[in-house]
């Protein structure tokens, strides 16, 4: 398996290659996309990107956790967590591309 890390810079580069915008504007557009997705999730919306996947926010109720090192009980507050469910297409492409 390749061991490269793709970052915002690579996404901007992809935008730059796709449309004839400046690198600076390409970077801002990547930022806008991430911001809009984040803002929708913070509002509690589900973000569904066809052929990519679905981000959804789930509420977790309070529970008593345990410090695994000391065994001490600690209360865990109710919280919201994000889950990402990849689309069928993405799962297929990732499985096909990483077949050993």
């Amino acid at each position, binding site marked *: 398996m390749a061991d490269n890390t793709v970052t*915002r810079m690579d996404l901007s580069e992809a935008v730059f290659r796709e449309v004839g915008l400046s690198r600076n504007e390409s970077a801002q557009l990547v930022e806008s996309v991430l911001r809009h997705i984040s803002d929708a999730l913070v509002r509690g919306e589900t973000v569904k990107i066809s052929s990519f*996947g679905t*981000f959804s926010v789930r509420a977790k109720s309070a529970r008593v956790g345990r410090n695994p090192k000391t065994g001490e009980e600690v209360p865990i507050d109710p919280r919201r967590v994000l889950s990402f469910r990849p689309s069928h297409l993405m799962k297929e492409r990732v499985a096909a591309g990483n077949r050993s």
Partner: protein
Amino acid sequence: MIRSELIQKIADENPHLFQRDVERIVNAIFEEITGALARGDRVELRGFGAFSVKRRDARVGRNPRTGEAVDVEEKAVPFFKTGKLLRDRLNGRQQG
């Protein structure tokens, strides 16, 4: 929010761009992420989250209808871990 609504929001903020270009831009971003994962690469977007590929071992599954045992091959699956900033924002804590 769905893909077309996301495209619309970006288009509204960038009146100097053609709608079809905004569409290509948004699609290029998601395509870059999927392509990276298909190559086995990791995608790290600080503050938002990180996409990575996890291996699932081969296992013996069961056809839920017939109860018959079936071999499931080892496979790679996409995985997303929420970034700290977004996790904090989801819980009402703003960036300090």
